[in-house]
């Protein structure tokens, strides 16, 4: 059957050329995880809700559980593994650590990819803009307040420490 035929997909992955033989039905997230070893992109819900699988596709955050890997052909893909350069974490990653913006860490890669996308286009996002940018990412342990603070500090802004009643 035709659907079982393998195809070769080539794209830029974290700055390097990647070329991989896959079945056309495979999702980007499973190709990244199971064929290319980039297990930082997590499969949380598998239904486009939780955002744990978020990667940057041509610089914009996308949920890799709902993209066929063949759709990435010829494009630029960045996963959580591609953020740090020469072992040096980005400021955003460091602020996540300092603000304790993660507990179990399962949602963290998706949070970081979306925040990276946000800060690339808006160097001083308001608290509302930060929250809106993370609307497609679910966290079920830390809560969102420290995540928002980490993004505020990464953009050299005063973090919101408490909310007025």
């Amino acid at each position, binding site marked *: 059957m035709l659907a079982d035929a393998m195809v070769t997909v080539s794209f830029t992955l974290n700055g390097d050329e990647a070329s991989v033989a896959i079945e056309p039905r495979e999702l980007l997230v499973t190709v990244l995880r199971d064929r290319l070893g980039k297990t930082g992109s997590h499969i949380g819900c598998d*239904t486009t809700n939780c*955002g744990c699988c978020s990667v940057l*596709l041509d610089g914009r*955050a*996308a949920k890799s559980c709902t993209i066929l890997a063949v*759709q990435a052909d010829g494009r630029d893909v960045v996963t959580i593994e591609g953020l740090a350069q020469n072992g040096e974490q980005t400021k955003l990653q460091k602020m996540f650590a300092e603000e304790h913006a993660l507990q179990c860490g399962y949602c963290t890669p998706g949070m970081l990819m*979306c925040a990276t996308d946000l800060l690339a286009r808006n160097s001083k996002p308001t608290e509302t803009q930060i929250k809106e940018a*993370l*609307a*497609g990412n679910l966290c079920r342990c830390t809560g969102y307040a420290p995540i928002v603070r980490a993004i505020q500090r990464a953009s050299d802004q005063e973090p919101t420490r408490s909310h007025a009643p």
Partner: protein
Amino acid sequence: MKMRLCELSHVIDLRHLPWNRVHEDAEGIRVGALATHRELEETRWLCERLPIVADAAHHLADLQVRGMGTFGGALAEADPAGDWSAVMIALDATVVIASKDGRRRIPIVELFTDPYTTSLAHTELIEEVLVPAATLRGKGAYMKLERRAGSFAIAGVAAQLVLREDGTVERAGIGVAGAGLTSLRAVEAERRLIGEPLSVAIIREAAGLAMQATSPFDDLRGTAEYKREMVGVLTERVLALTQNRLEGLGRVSHAR
């Protein structure tokens, strides 16, 4: 596809077609079917010209989904609670449909025939949607009530008004999402506004007529009664916001 609601032997990615342009000509503004929600959200001139588009684009799904999902794809999915369908009804838009035999045009309301069902033939694709120049002279707004950020609307109302110099309404478009088997046009509410100056009383009457235009059903998002009530509330708010935008006052509080 992923939910196993359908099983397909082939899937064709349309993204290689050059149909993502957004531009203006003598007829109006043309929005390419393959423009993503995010591309529309980030097209500053479009959002300034049509704040109703900014309202819808910014609150549709989430950042990641907006970057992949397309304007034409959402219209062709014909979800009865779709944001773009209500907005394009309010804008009195025309759908440009392409097939190997050429092009045809239909008013947007004729696209939606049933839930998730359009009047498109299997050989046809939406190429672009034309927002006519006549509605561009006005201003509008879109608001939706959602269970959580990025959800489909429990109910949504879009309005676009064009005023005459004396302040009376020349053209009115009101589209409603989530309150029937398809998105619908609140024709009687539009008629009530035309020829009148905008006032709290007229807006309230139009909201009542918009409620009567709906035929909502009970589902997980709410009861039919609740959805109809919310259409009334949203119509009032969206018309008040439109009035403020027409007066150059910008965005105001949603409070009644």
